[in-house]
């Protein structure tokens, strides 16, 4: 939520500067996404997570945190007038729906003037990203962003009979303030009058009793609804509002009355009128929460000893009442902190305010558990799988295979998603071969020579009918063209044999082709195994050693998305000249547009001299290269070669 610095300052007059405030919040309360100046104000985008959304999706809540963190006085604005509590003429409120509505505070106002908000009010809302509508609606919104309590105003002259909180009846309809026609049913809680629904309780107002320019008399609502019901209704109707968000996070019903006091006070100033008094229907008031905190427990959890006076001071700054007895503290929790339910919650409160940076790192006495598992037989199945999969990675990488990781979400399979992101990602893959085959073809487009194979593998889960999953290994080899003397199926068979060797001697050969699925053409072969079945057959493996395949840190090189241009150059050099020397020469002559090579691909000697042929790849990171640009690069190469008096073969 976006918070206004100036608004927070109303509660904490000595508020620290915005950046200091940000740091205090980050290390003691909430993540702050950003701080930015806006006119004479500053805005803080504070990430209020669900554990504190019931009390901190409002300026008062965050101001309380700031006052606690920085040990600064917190001051509540005094209302300018008192509310009259009791029976009010022309206002009857009935809660029919048992526990759905935990409290309903209603107020009747007469003779209000609807119009534009004063500049300060419209400006204060606009600064936090809310549009000004009129003085009445703005006042209700202001109170919500101030105290966290959603408020609603009905045009009293459009309401007939008692305000009733009840479940809707199937067949009833309602038009929302933004003109959406909704079909209602018994799962939905509404605010209704004799004629029918007026509002979706806790979510959105209705059109029928909307406040407009001609409104004179109001019924004001400050209510509290069951959080789960509001969440389910919001999800069912696909409507999320600032109000429903606050209710579904379990706002305290105690807030309803002070919020009404604040609203009436504000309306008197911005819309005038007479306020007849409130009706407060509150069948079972929130009970006071008490927690016993053992100081030893607190210190054991934090791993340091927080001085008892400091603990007490922190708790009192959080407006928790503290009574100490020996090593225990009896705590009475303020009504707005509905998240504080047990001692573990208090550990977090004391820890974060005291400062986690004061906790020195420690290790456990090393007597405790386990130790690293030596050998497969003594370890868990998961350890065994981890080791065997790594052994397979080692075998394949040593054989020149490159590991890929594919995408589990695809366009066909046996298990379907109920809420996919896109139709081509609506299924879980049922095999690894399909994607691997595609990737062989994709990578063959980028090889430089027909004799250069693409050799890749993947270990990953596949998903089968009945929500079953298996771990598979897929290995593939592909060439761009059929190469004489190369049989891709034979090559794979050799690899398969190496993996079969992992299995214990007597079951060697158990890894038959029916355990593995082979798909092959002249140029591409892909084989897929069920590793779950293989694991059972493995007894012992040599230690895994992946060291040679671990990369140090470096800045990776981006792959260009623009087309490449391939050029070859062949040159006659003296027999004593090494290819490395020529490669170096060519490298120095070209610009950074040469992304691969020169790669030596042909070498033969004839009549006392040597022919060397090189391949170079030119590519740009920001545009499609033209032939001319490649030609220019090649001219530089030829020039460099001829400077050495080599004969470039043309």
């Amino acid at each position, binding site marked *: 939520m976006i918070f206004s610095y100036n608004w927070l300052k109303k509660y904490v007059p000595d508020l620290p500067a915005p950046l200091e405030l940000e740091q205090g919040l980050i290390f003691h309360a909430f993540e702050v996404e950003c701080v930015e100046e806006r006119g004479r104000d500053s805005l803080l985008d504070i990430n209020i997570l669900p554990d504190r959304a019931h009390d901190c999706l409002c300026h008062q809540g965050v101001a309380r945190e700031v006052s606690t963190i920085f040990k600064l006085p917190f001051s509540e604005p005094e209302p300018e007038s008192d509310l009259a509590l009791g029976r009010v003429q022309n206002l009857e409120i009935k809660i029919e729906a048992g526990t759905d509505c935990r409290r309903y505070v209603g107020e009747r106002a007469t003779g209000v003037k609807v119009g534009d908000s004063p500049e300060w009010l419209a400006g204060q809302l606009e600064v936090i990203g809310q549009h000004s509508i009129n003085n009445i609606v703005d006042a209700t919104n202001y109170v919500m962003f101030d105290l966290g309590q959603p408020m609603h105003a009905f045009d009293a002259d459009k309401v007939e009979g008692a305000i009733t909180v009840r479940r809707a009846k199937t067949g009833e309809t309602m038009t929302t303030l933004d003109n959406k026609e909704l079909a209602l049913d018994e799962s939905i809680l509404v605010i209704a009058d004799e004629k029918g629904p007026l509002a979706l309780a806790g979510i959105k107002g209705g059109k029928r009793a909307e406040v407009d320019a001609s409104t004179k008399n109001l019924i004001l609502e400050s209510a509290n609804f069951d959080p789960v019901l509001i969440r389910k209704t919001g999800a069912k109707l696909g409507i999320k509002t600032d109000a429903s968000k606050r209710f579904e996070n379990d706002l305290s019903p105690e807030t309803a009355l002070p919020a009404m006091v604040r609203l009436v006070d504000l309306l008197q100033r911005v819309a005038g009128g007479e306020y007849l008094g409130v009706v407060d229907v509150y069948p079972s008031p929130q009970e006071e929460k008490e927690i016993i905190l053992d100081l030893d427990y607190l210190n054991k959890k934090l791993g340091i000893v927080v001085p008892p006076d400091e603990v007490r001071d922190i708790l009192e700054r959080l407006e928790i009442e503290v009574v100490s007895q020996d090593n225990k503290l009896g705590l009475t929790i303020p009504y707005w902190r509905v998240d504080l339910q047990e001692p573990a919650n208090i550990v977090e409160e004391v820890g974060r305010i005291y400062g986690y940076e004061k906790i020195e790192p420690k290790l456990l006495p090393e007597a405790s558990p386990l130790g690293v598992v030596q050998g497969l037989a003594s370890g868990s199945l998961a350890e065994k799988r981890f080791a065997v999969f790594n052994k397979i990675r080692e075998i394949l990488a040593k054989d020149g295979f490159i590991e890929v990781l594919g995408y589990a979400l695809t366009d066909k399979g046996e298990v379907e998603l109920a809420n996919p*992101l896109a139709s081509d990602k609506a299924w879980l893959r049922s095999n690894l071969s399909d994607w691997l085959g595609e990737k062989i073809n994709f990578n063959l487009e980028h090889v430089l020579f027909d004799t250069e194979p693409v050799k890749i593998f993947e270990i990953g889960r596949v998903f089968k009918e009945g929500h079953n999953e298996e771990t598979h290994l897929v290995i593939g080899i592909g060439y761009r063209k059929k190469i004489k003397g190369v049989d891709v199926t034979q090559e794979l068979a050799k690899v398969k044999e190496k993996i079969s060797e992992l299995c214990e001697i007597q079951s060697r050969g158990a890894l038959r082709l029916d355990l593995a699925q082979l798909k092959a053409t002249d140029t591409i072969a892909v084989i897929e195994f069920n590793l779950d079945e293989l694991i059972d057959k493995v007894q012992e493996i040599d230690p895994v050693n992946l060291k040679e395949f671990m990369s140090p840190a470096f800045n990776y090189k981006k792959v260009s998305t623009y087309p490449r241009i391939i050029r070859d150059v062949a040159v006659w050099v003296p027999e004593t000249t090494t290819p490395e020397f020529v490669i170096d020469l060519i490298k120095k002559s070209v610009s950074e547009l040469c992304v691969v090579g020169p790669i030596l691909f042909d070498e033969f000697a004839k009549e006392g001299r040597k022919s060397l042929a090189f391949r170079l790849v030119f590519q740009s990171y920001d545009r499609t290269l033209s032939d001319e640009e490649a030609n220019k690069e090649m001219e530089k190469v030829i020039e460099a070669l001829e400077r050495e008096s080599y004969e470039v073969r043309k």
Partner: protein
Amino acid sequence: MCSGGIVCFCYNQEVKDNEEKGHLHPLNQVINQVVGAFHDLGFSVAEGPEIEDEFHNFDALNFPADHPSRDMQDTFWLKPEKSKKLLRSQTSDVQIRYMEEMLEEGKEPPLRIVVPGKVYRQEATDARHESQFHQIEGLLVDKNVSVAHLKGYLEEFFKSLYGADLDIRLRPSFFPFVEPGFEFDLVCIRCHDKEGKPVKGNQCPLCSGTGWMEMGGAGLVHPNVLRAVGLDDKVWSGFAFGIGVERLAMTKWAIDDIRFFTNGDLRFLKQF
């Protein structure tokens, strides 16, 4: 740019075009390094299914039903919807599975596990977000486990991973299955002084000049989680943490787009 640190990084190294050599996927390299470091600290590997039920992914992890905390993890649900099966949104489900199995076998803590695995979130993909990614979960349950221990083991882990004493720091955060809950940051592996303290103000792509890198979430195991599997929370306590594998890899190699990991492009994968 950055001050020279204890950790030696050879950022000028040229990528070799060795066509014969095989390669391990960069994410599995990171997973192996992390698991190796935790092996040294007495943690053993555990795993769990990617298709998960509501109990293990949410209920037992103290995400109440119909509670906004479930919105923190946009979840993929499977058909038929009445099966209530989902793709796990975190590896924390294995905390529950591991403890359940342990108790079923009549064993008790202490325990230390590390759980590498794939997780799924129903969120649109861009350079920083993927709907499938990898996490490494850690769980330690013992007697008298404190925040000080969490800090201690995380520091030891990073020491083992990077070969240097680097500071970590905790910031308050919220995950339903831990209390207190934190985000933890590591001193930038490029921008730090000889004592492993952060150096601010560099134009460093890893830490944006803050001197700290966000590494993951952590906390003390919530008493409700221990209760959910039937452990007495008055006797046992523990800590848990989760580390994003992609984030570690992107940090290590300055990779700026998470989607490269799953595009199967050998021009990318051959660099590692």
